[in-house]
């Protein structure tokens, strides 16, 4: 077997032997899908079966993270080109959202509750972290539920949860809005920047800017959506799609399944991550999301305005919409000068093609959103040395 003699660089693979006779579930979910032997065998299969150059896009930032964190790139043949897609929510959130956040922060009775990843994104007038330095009350939360807990404890202030994320996260925000309603909580609000994944995938394919031979589809988005939203890619556009998990074995198996689809000249939506993704997704989560949000045209950094790609809070839940606390924002959703995030998010440039990368723009002092988010392509390239 053509297996590399040394473990991959940056590898966090844990050497373990899976006990076939009496597997413990935690061994199955953690160790088995990081097993170096399986990783090597899969990489050997990919090298053997790849029949020519292929360009695949891993849509999700968490996939990009896995590829680099586990050193998988070093195991793959150079003819297999991997592009990072627009699946980092913080990265694709346009500057006009951060401008809304800045306006909200000017109200001294407003407390902003945010996931940590948003804090360093440079807006036109600084980042959330800068707002905090200047006296705004900005709290990092790990869950929307935590933001509601804060609101219930301090009814004299207005708590605004910054709702960023795709179909994985939007149902959580929907659930917390319903919880706020059930608790008759009048001081909890959401600034929705939620978006959905299939419209930008369509936009990328239809722009023709970059040739993509297949998509590694986002695993945790698909936990909610199921496989149906990608069918147009396979059926109308002829693009193989595989929904994959995030452990090294998952990612490599997903890539191998894409290569096999191409070798067999077919395009379908296949699920590699079957332990978590059902074809029908999570109907309860989707129903909740659809009850609270409606789809609307939305701006994406790098991709511009995409029809029906954003999730707006429905009129029935307007009492929880933070947008009512501020005047409408009309600023262009453009990048800061010199930053090429907009190209990186479309797969037409790599971080090291940016003049700012690694010099002026670093994770501690990011100039663009792709360096500010842990899952941004620039941040990943910087941290894992590519």
């Amino acid at each position, binding site marked *: *077997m053509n297996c590399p003699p040394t473990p991959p660089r940056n590898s966090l693979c844990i050497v373990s032997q*899976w006990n076939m006779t009496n*597997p413990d*579930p*935690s061994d*199955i*979910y*953690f160790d*088995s*899908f990081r097993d170096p032997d*399986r990783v090597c*065998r*899969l990489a*050997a*299969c990919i090298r*053997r*079966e790849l029949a020519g150059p292929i360009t695949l896009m891993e849509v*999700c*930032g*968490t996939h990009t993270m896995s590829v680099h964190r586990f050193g998988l790139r070093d195991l793959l043949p150079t003819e297999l080109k991997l592009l990072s897609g627009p*699946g*980092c*929510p913080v990265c694709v959130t346009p500057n006009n959202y951060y401008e809304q956040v800045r306006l909200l922060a000017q109200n001294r009775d407003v407390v902003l509750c945010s*996931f940590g*990843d948003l804090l360093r994104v440079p807006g036109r007038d600084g980042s959330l972290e800068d707002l905090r330095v200047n006296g705004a009350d900005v709290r990092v939360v*790990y*869950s*929307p*539920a*935590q933001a509601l807990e804060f609101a219930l404890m301090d009814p004299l202030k207005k708590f605004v949860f910054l709702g*960023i*994320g*795709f179909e*994985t*996260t939007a*149902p*959580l925000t929907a*659930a917390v809005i*319903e*919880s706020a309603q059930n608790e008759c909580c009048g001081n909890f609000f959401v600034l929705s920047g939620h978006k959905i994944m299939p419209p930008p995938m369509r936009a990328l394919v239809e722009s023709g800017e970059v040739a993509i031979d297949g998509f590694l589809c*986002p*695993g*945790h*988005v698909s*936990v*909610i959506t199921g496989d149906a939203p990608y069918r147009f890619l396979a059926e109308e556009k002829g693009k193989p799609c595989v929904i994959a998990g995030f452990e090294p*074995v998952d990612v490599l*198996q997903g890539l191998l399944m894409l290569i096999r689809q191409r070798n067999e000249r077919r395009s379908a939506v296949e699920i*590699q991550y*079957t*332990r*978590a*993704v*059902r074809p029908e997704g*999570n109907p*309860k*989560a989707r129903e*909740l999301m659809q009850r609270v949000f409606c789809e609307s045209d939305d701006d994406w950094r790098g991709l511009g305005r995409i029809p029906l790609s954003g999730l707006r809070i429905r009129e029935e839940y307007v009492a929880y919409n933070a947008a009512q606390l501020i005047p409408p924002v009309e600023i262009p959703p453009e990048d800061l000068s010199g930053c090429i995030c907009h190209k990186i998010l479309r797969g037409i440039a790599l971080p090291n093609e940016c003049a700012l990368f690694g010099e002026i723009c670093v994770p501690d002092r990011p100039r663009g959103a792709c360096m500010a*988010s842990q*899952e941004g392509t620039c941040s990943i390239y910087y941290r894992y040395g590519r």
Partner: protein
Amino acid sequence: MCLAVPMKVTQIVGPNCTAEMSGITARVRLDLVPDVRVGDYVIVHAGYAIQRLDEQEALETLSLLDELSAHAAEE
């Protein structure tokens, strides 16, 4: 941001459960995944369970993969 981890449900109280992973315990909301039982593994994203993990499917994925890659290695 779409990071989610498998955790084992150890206790259920109303819409919340206690779940653990590698010695870390967390309070997790169950609003999106009905019918969870103690002992189940769920995927947790930002404090909410978003799906129950299917152990049988995980084992099938691994066994299919081992079969395919072993076959490839023999060629």
